[in-house]
């Protein structure tokens, strides 16, 4: 949680405060970028870009919004742009998911999914669904905070999140079944 007086000092032109502020948010920025882009190098690039943008745009932040949602809006926008540039968008409905499971996956019905499987599954989601999931689970944002960050209506956020979870559940479930069929 970034302290309000640090933000005010940064906005008042205190460059040290601004750099300190960037240090405080660096990890949360990177975490979002990492899970949105599913790639360390891209995440580092996007985080640098986001922090520089925050540095230059700090005066556009208004206190009526939460600072953390403002920050996440910047980083998610950058990641989505980056994603659009780098990869063709895949519609989850059209795509038939083929998971290449390891040969020895056991037929455990409800084994915990490992982090890499989940990351790969998140990576298959349409960008808005993915973003909602990342903000919900990697930033612990509420529906309202997600709505603020993404400038979406509350109901849209819920519907994205619910659908994303169903899709993930189905992807990971298929994955496990795929492992059984092996």
């Amino acid at each position: 949680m970034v302290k309000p007086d640090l933000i005010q000092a940064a906005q008042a032109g205190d460059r040290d405060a601004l750099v300190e502020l960037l240090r405080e948010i660096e990890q949360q920025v990177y975490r979002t970028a990492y899970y949105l882009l599913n790639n360390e190098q891209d995440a580092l690039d996007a985080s640098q870009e986001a922090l520089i943008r925050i540095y230059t745009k700090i005066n556009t932040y208004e206190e009526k919004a939460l600072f953390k949602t403002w920050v996440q809006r910047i980083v998610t926008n950058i990641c989505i742009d980056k994603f659009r540039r780098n990869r063709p968008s895949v519609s989850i409905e059209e795509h038939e998911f083929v998971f290449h499971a390891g040969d020895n996956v056991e037929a455990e019905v409800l084994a915990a999914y490992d982090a890499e499987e989940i990351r790969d599954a998140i990576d298959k989601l349409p960008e808005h669904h993915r973003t909602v999931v990342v903000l919900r689970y990697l930033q612990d944002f509420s529906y309202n905070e997600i709505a603020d960050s993404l400038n979406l209506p509350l109901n849209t956020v819920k519907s994205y999140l619910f659908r994303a979870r169903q899709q993930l559940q189905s992807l990971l479930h298929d994955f496990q079944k795929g492992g059984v069929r092996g």
Partner: protein
Amino acid sequence: MNCEEVMELMQRSLDGDLDKAETSRMKEHIQTCPDCAAMFERLTLLSDNLAQLPRVVPSFSIVDSILPQLEMIELAANAPQEAIRLEQPAQRTSRSARKSVYRRLAGAIAAGVAAGLLIVSWPSLRPPQSDQNNSFNAASVSSSGSNAASSSPSASVTDQTARQFSVSGEDQYGDLEGASPKMEAGQPAASSEPSFFSEPNEPEPGISEPDSTPLQESADTRGFAEEPNEGNAPMTSFGAVDSGGTPAPEDEPGVEPSEEPAATLQVPMSSGFAIAPPVVWASPDGKYEAVIEENRLKVYQLADGSLLFESEEHPDSTIGDIVWDDDTGVLHYTRTDASGEAVRLEWTAASSQEQPEADSPESEDRP
């Protein structure tokens, strides 16, 4: 209630968004519908797993990596009329950090010098229970062994005392602290020592002004008299030192460096003056500890005590301005040679290399 409605309830329940009535409606349905029960179990598992995804952190400080770019942005924004001022804001953080280091150093030195003087001047006042503290004991014994009235032996005693303090490190403070109640009984002068040694890192307002007042004077007249939380004992004891007219500190080469203005405080190891209490700079992330030993800067890894780095020996030069960056594992310091030429250096944990400081004036000459 159909399964589709229950799906929404299940989803919202994962986010803690259901009230009691909704929760019991959902549970009622799940108990009678195996499909929904299975789905709820899977969604719950998924949600738990999502919540447990690793909180990845970058492999290096992203902010550090963009500092040069931020500098350029600042340059562009302020150019041209304020170009000269650019390096100022860039270094403000580290400057102020250094200032506080000065303060601590000044406090530590003043405390050490005063302790040395006290022991030299008043050998009879050493704590009777000094066996609780070996180094203190040794210093006291040697000070009483040498004649406190002659200046050069007493200087070496001061030196030795200081070295004892710096070598024995933090345990000593605990000992002194623990011993203080006993010493206070009828030993006012001795009781004052543990009280200021017990908090060697506290900034001491009385000494903090980096003005041109010689440290010696500030120690006698302002520093300790104004030191907070010390009660009456220190004032009494230092009043005694002051008025006693015992050994003239000016004659002692070992004390001489402390008369430099605090603002340019260095650690002149080669002159034989060892700084009293901690000459240890722990990094903010608690991983490393920098010390000055034998006129070299050494960096230890705290986890296993291993020596990570040892600077080359430069005779007649001094190392000062030692300050860690916040959490980045970068240590800044200045080496000043005999002619007074200072080189700003930094040591980076990532590479364990010594190099010229990135934001030093030299490197900023580059376009």
